[in-house]
Structures are given as C-alpha cells and as structure tokens.
C-alpha cells in the first residue's frame, strides 16, 4: 500500500504492507533512525513522534494510518544548525545519558510546552510519564524541560520587544 505523509516538513512516500508499523516505516523506509524502539507493548515511549503536534507512540500506529498527516521526529527539532530550546535544555541540564529515550522525551517536552509554556514540576512529570528513562532518574529531564520553557519565554520576550521597537509596530 502507498503511504504519503509529511515528515519534518517534507513530503515523503513509500510502498508498504498494511501491517507495517509507523516506527518501522520511519526507521527502515525513510532511514530516520532517531526514533527508537524500546518495547513491544507500547509502554516505553522511545518511539514517540509528533503527529500534528501531538505525541504519539509510533509503534502503536500503522504507517498507512499516518497517510496525509504531518509528522515531526527528533530529526525535525533543529532548524539547520540551530538547536531548538528543548535540545538546548537537555544538553545544558544533562537531561540525557545513553540518549536512547531522549528523542521521545524531547518530543513530549516540545508538545507540552506548546500547550503549557510554563509547566510545574508535577505537570512535567505527568506529561513524560508515558516515557521510560532507565538512566537519568528523571531529575535532570524535568530540569531540561524547565530550561527549555525558560528559553522559549526569553525568545518570546525578545520577539515582543523587537515587535514593540519596530517603527510603527504595535
């Protein structure tokens, strides 16, 4: 069956059996290997991607079900050489060790901050509770997401300032 979807802003397509999981399609057909597989029971969240901005475990979705949708994987977080706030947050706060859970964690964090730009610790912990990390004990993942929130806040403030300072800008 033909699958056509948008991944990280580009149109991609492929021919797959109906049973092929989205995660396998991304990893094998598109060679986007940043999306990982950590379990076979939809428990770990290593395979998390964003579908239309919402975090989804790509091991629970068939590739064909994603037809026509817009998908963001970890490879789509940075804009060229510019890391996104969440990526900077994870680096700055030591939010990763082996890195295997990191793509999923960062995507969940990204979507959380879209909905809730200034989450509390409990809100962050709840948001990432579908994702398992075996290395970090979560302390620094929470800090990383807070750090990203701060960067986004700062960026918005700067944009606002610029907009305000622009001649005739309102």
């Amino acid at each position, binding site marked *: 069956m033909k699958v056509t979807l948008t991944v990280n802003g580009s149109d991609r397509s492929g021919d797959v059996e109906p049973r092929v999981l989205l995660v396998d399609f991304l990893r094998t057909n598109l060679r986007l*290997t940043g999306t990982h597989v950590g379990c076979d029971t939809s428990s770990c969240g290593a395979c998390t991607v964003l579908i239309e901005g919402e975090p989804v475990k790509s091991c629970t979705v068939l590739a064909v079900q994603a037809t026509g949708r817009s998908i963001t994987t970890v490879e789509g977080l940075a804009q060229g050489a510019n890391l996104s706030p969440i990526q900077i947050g994870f680096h700055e706060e030591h939010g990763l060790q082996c890195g295997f859970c990191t793509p999923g964690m960062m995507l969940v964090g990204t979507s959380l901050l879209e909905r809730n730009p200034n989450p509390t610790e409990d809100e962050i912990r709840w948001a990432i509770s579908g994702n398992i990390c075996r290395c970090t004990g*979560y302390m620094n993942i929470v800090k990383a997401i807070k750090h990203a929130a701060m960067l986004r806040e700062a960026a918005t403030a700067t944009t606002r300032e610029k907009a305000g300072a622009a001649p005739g800008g309102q």
Partner: protein
Amino acid sequence: MATEVHMHGRIGESIKRKEDGRFIRGKGNYLDDIELPGMLHMAILRSPHAHARISSVDTAAASGMPGVIAVVTGELMAQHKLAWMPTLSYDTQAVLATDKVRFQGQEVAAVIAESKYQAEDARDAIMVDYDVLPAVISPQQAKEAGAALIRDDKENQKDNHIYHWEAGDQETTKAAFAKADKVVRLHTFYPRCHPAPLETCGCIADVNGATGKATIYMTSQAPHAIRTVFALVTGLPEQNIRVISPDIGGGFGNKVPVYPGYVVATAASLLIGRPVKWVEDRTENLISTGFARDFHMTGDLAVDKDGKMLALRVHLDSDNGAFFADAQPTKFKAGLFHIVTGSYDIPTAHVTADGYYTNKAPGGVAYRCSFRVTEASYLIERLVTNAAIELGMDQAEFRMKNFIQPEQFPYHSATGWVYDSGDYPKAMNVALEQLGYDELRKDVKARRKKGEVTGIGIASFTEVVGAGHGAEFDILGLRMFDSAELRVHPTGKAILRMGTKSQGQGHETTFAQIVTEELGIPAADVAVEEGDTDTAPYGLGTYASRSTPVAGAATAMVARKLRDKGRKIAAHLLEAAEEDLEWESGRFYVKGSPDKAKTIQEIAFAAYTNIPDGMEAGLEGVHYYDPPNMTYPFGTYAVVIDIDKGTGQVKVRRVVAVDDCGVRINPMIVEGQIHGGLAEGYGIAFMELITFDPEGNCIGSNFIDYLLPTAWETPRFELGETVTPSPHHPLGAKGVGESPTVGSPAAYVNAVMDALAPYGVTNIDMPVTSDKVWAALRAAGVNE
C-alpha cells in the same frame, strides 16, 4: 610567546557532555541504526516451556516462506560443533537446543530472511514437538529429593547443585556467637529482577567470505573480552575478528554476557556470506538475557548487650537458572558477595553459598552492581536496621557505634577484603544533618501518635569496585586490567582510546577531562574513542564501576608518560635542563622565570617537527593499568516514607543520598549517575519483579508486567557528598555508577520496616508492593 593556556575541563569542572550533540539531534549510532549492504535479518524461535524434551523440529514450512534464506536448528549448529558454548562461569550453555529446553524462552531455532517481518513470519511456522517435563523454579525445589534433573547433559551431574562456596572463618564465628548476648536473624529473598536497558541486545555479524574477516557489531559492554571468547568458541583467528560496540542505549550489566543469538548470527553470516542482523525484542530481553539477584539469604548478627557487633553468619542459596552463566571473576562463585560485613567493624564472619540450577533463564549479571555487592549490601543493611529496632536502639546510633573508624584504614575485613579508605561517620553525619534527622524523629513520633504509619530508613553501604588487581580478579583467565592509548597530534589536539565502553556514563567527557588535568589539553580538543577492537587497546570493559578506577587510572598514567616526554622536548626548546623545568597548568616553564615557557601545544608540534637528536618522533603512548587494589566507595542514604493504612501504598517523602566516591572528575555526570541509580533502586525496592508460575512461565516478560519507574512514581532526590580520595588511585577517584543501586534498596525497605516496626513486622521481600504492605498491616490487626 604563546604561553597562554586554556585548560577548560579540568577535574572537578561540570563541563557539558561532549557526546550530547549527536544524541539530541537523533543522530546516535545504536546497533539497530546500522544498515549494511545485503544485510539479512534473524529471528529466534524460543521455547514456550520451562522444561521439555524436544522430540522433533520441523522446518519445512518455514524454509519455503517468502524471503527466507535459511533456517538454523540445534542440529545444524551441532554439525559445526556450535550447539553449546562455554559460559563466563566455566559451565556450558546451549546455543540452540538439541536435547531439551531448560527454561521458557530458550533458543530453539532461528530464521534468516530478507526482512525482519519475513523472518518473524517464518519463525512462527517452525513446528516443534515437546514432551513437557516438570519444572523446577526455585533452589528449594531444586534440592528436593526426586527433583527433576535439569542438567542431564553433564556427565557427572547427579543433582541440581552447582557449587558450594565459603568465605571467612567458621570456628571463630561459632565461638563469637556462643558469647553473644543477642542474635538477630533476617531471612530475606532478593528477588529476580532485570537490568532492562531501554535498548535491547543485538548484533550484526558480517563475515567477509573473501577476506575471512568477521566484523561483529554488538551491544557489548566488553567488546575485547567478547572478541577473545569468540575466537575460542568459533576457532576463528583473533586478528580476523573485529568487534564494534556502537552507541549503547544503557547496559547496567545486561550487555556483558555472550548470548546465543550472537553466536547463531555469526555462524549464519559465515555460512550464507551476507551480514546478518539480530535485535531481540523486549520480551526476549526480559525472558532470556542476563537477569539479576535471585538470592535467598539468611543472616545472623551476634551482638553484645551494649550493642557492639561480634560476628556475622550468612548463608545464601543462589538461583542460577538453567546454565551457570554468571558474569563474574573466576575465583568467586557468588561474586563479591563476601563484602557482606559492609561498613562495620565485625571481628569475625562466616559466609556460605550454594548455587542451584533451576528451569529459569541463565546468566546472573550484576544489575548496576559490582558482582553481587548489591545483595550483600542489602542483607547487611537490612539486618543492621532490624537489629537496631530489636535492641531498641536508634538505627543511626547503632551504625555509628559499629562503623569501621577512619583511623582503621586500610581495614582488613573478616572475609578477606582490604578496604582502601573511608570515613563512614562523616558521611552519616552529613546525611543526618541534611535530612534534619533529630527533628524528623520527633515528627515521626508525633505522627504515629496520630495513627499515621511513617518511618525513616537508613543504609550506610560500602561498595567494592574497580576490579582487579589482576592476580586476584580475572574473567576466563583474562586479568582485569584496563588500558588507555593517547596520541597527541602536531596541532596539540589528541585522541584517547580505551578498552572500556560507555553505555551512557559520559566517557567521552570524563576521560577527556583526565587528559586535560594531566596534560593541559582542553577537553574539547580530546576525542575519546572506545568500542572498536581493531583500534582500541585491549581492556576488560565497562561494568562493575570499573571504568574510572581502572581505565581512568590508565588514562592518567599514559598522560603522565607523555608529559615526561614533553619535559624533554620542552628542555630542548627552551635550552634548559630538564630538572630546571616546572610543570603547571598545561605548560613547562623555567624555574624562576615563568615567562620562559612552552605549552603542551607547542611541545606537541615540536614532537613532530623539532626533537632533540636521538629522540623518537611523535607524542603518543599506551598504558595498561592493573590496579593494586579495589576501590571502596561508600555513603549513607536516608529515606522517609509514609504508608496509606487503607491501601498499603508506600509514598516516598524524601530521599537524601550522601555519596563518597573519592575525587569527582565531572560532578554533573557523577550526580546524574546517582540520580539514575536511585531511580533504579526505587524500582527494585517497590516495582521490578521477574517471577514464575509453577509451570515455569515467566511473569514479567514485558513492560506491562515488569514495572519500571516512570517520572511520576520516581521520588525527588537530594544529594550530598563527602570526599575521601582513594589512596592508590592516581586521581583519588573511586567509581560511582553503582553506589546508588547498591545502597538505596535497603534504605527504601528499611524505611518501610521502621514504619511497620510498631506492628511487629520484620520483613517484606522486595518488591514492597501495596498488597504486601496491606496484608502485613492487616495481619497486625490494622484494617480489620
């Protein structure tokens, strides 16, 4: 003159990790990310039964399925003398079963096909007839008269007993017990759990028919040792085997052993002439690869009326599964369990251990632990808390009274260890202070008066990590040294290669910092490479917290060698005598005239362009470090919990962890390691369990049954530190990755025991789940 030096990244600086860049971009290179031209995929058929005789294996249907290239059976492996392989504990293990299956999940056959989906389809079409036999699922059953004989393949094996092992002194211990005012006993079971790294195990075997070179990509914590084992098992010449451990998604001990899948994939690639990839799924990981613990332990602690410890007697029955495949040093059958006297000055002790075969997965590994130290630490710390409660003494005070004192180091323990250094009272005091112990004790009293169930648990663990010394510690005869090779390029940048292998510990940063400290090259300018046996010097690998104690020491030593050569070059450049030069922050300068100096970068350039007559060009070296002793990190952990009387739910209110791992190279990374271990310790104490029904079916074969802590359950951690440098490590470092898993389970459970002490409860086996706590409270008359 360019004498300015930037030494960013010295020891003690929390620099950000050098390895992060690729991981946060989704560009890590984990095993399953590797795709080779012409690569095939392998799926393994596993036994549904715990114990059964195989009467037939029919592969006809499977062989004809789309995409199938080959079906491999035990019989085929036997034709190549590969149906069995040696284990790390001098036993044998079936690669693919020929006679019987001995645990649920055992490897029976394998399919190699063009795609993973096709391989799995065909695997399901293999027909196997089994005659089911009674399953043995515990040491207690294993030793019963008339128990089914599991290892009937071994000629002299008449029962299910594997080994008997002892340490300490039986006679003096007996005498001390005779004089005791009180003996406190604890019988507790440290259940089977699993390291469950988020990435499962796997390999890609690529045997080149034209050159005979076998390149094996493998999720291995110990690639060099694996290469040697492969050479011995397969008979391939060792120079033709190249093991590459790519980025590893967590290991925690699970990725130390050699698994049958590796051997089958390699044999298949050899026979077919194409690369073969095998990546296990989560269920395969949980039911067949290196488990942890499964120790049934009984401890007796003899004390006098003043609360002084007199002697310790311990017996343990170890459940080793169907093959004795524990990954541990040769001389020690129950790992380093005899460190069981812990942090206490116990004059005499006697430890006995018996290992048994059962119809369960083999391969006892140290789940974030140095060869069974975790079990030992758990037993003694639980026993000590129970004893304090029974004596009516405060847990902290009882520990203080019996600690090995700072002036007793190096301390010779009753079971033969020589502890290198420690200051246990100090770590305890820091922890109590940070916790506000005295206030909290009052608070606990007040809450209990109101009918609340609440408690404080303490554990003051001592670890033993960083194996060797090589004369004492070896794996399959390979001495447990480790190595570092350092090359400084003409522009003053460097590459460091080691025999270890990071699985998330941040080696690319930590070890670069050692070079910065010793040689003055900024950490950013030092590339660190591990895991390729064709390029890295030989080493025993990363587990048992041995990387910093052993390979870290090797790094310091090799850097010092280069510095010595650098001094000669600097003397030549400065036209000064070597002894007139002083080393400081990345440069040599002439004593008394600090302006006359040469930086390490200038020296490196000269090493290739302007050397004194008779000197070898270049600035590189290698060091193999065989540690004179183990290192002994320690600490005190304190946990406060509240129990919901109605549901039995345990809520962790606070966790204070004070660690002393000697000198910390990158404190940020050290703290990250401690967080991770405390979370895994929490999982072990309250959630993680691999158990079996009477037929030997594994319960805990996926992440729905085998529960791992998420961010929601995991408590917040408060860290503290003391620093007692190791006297024999060149940097004073001790290793830390495992301390929190070693120390914390007892602290968590001790808190529960403290809370339940008023109800007369003295033990609940881990995981301490709500139902067990609820039942204990109910038995004590609560909730009736």
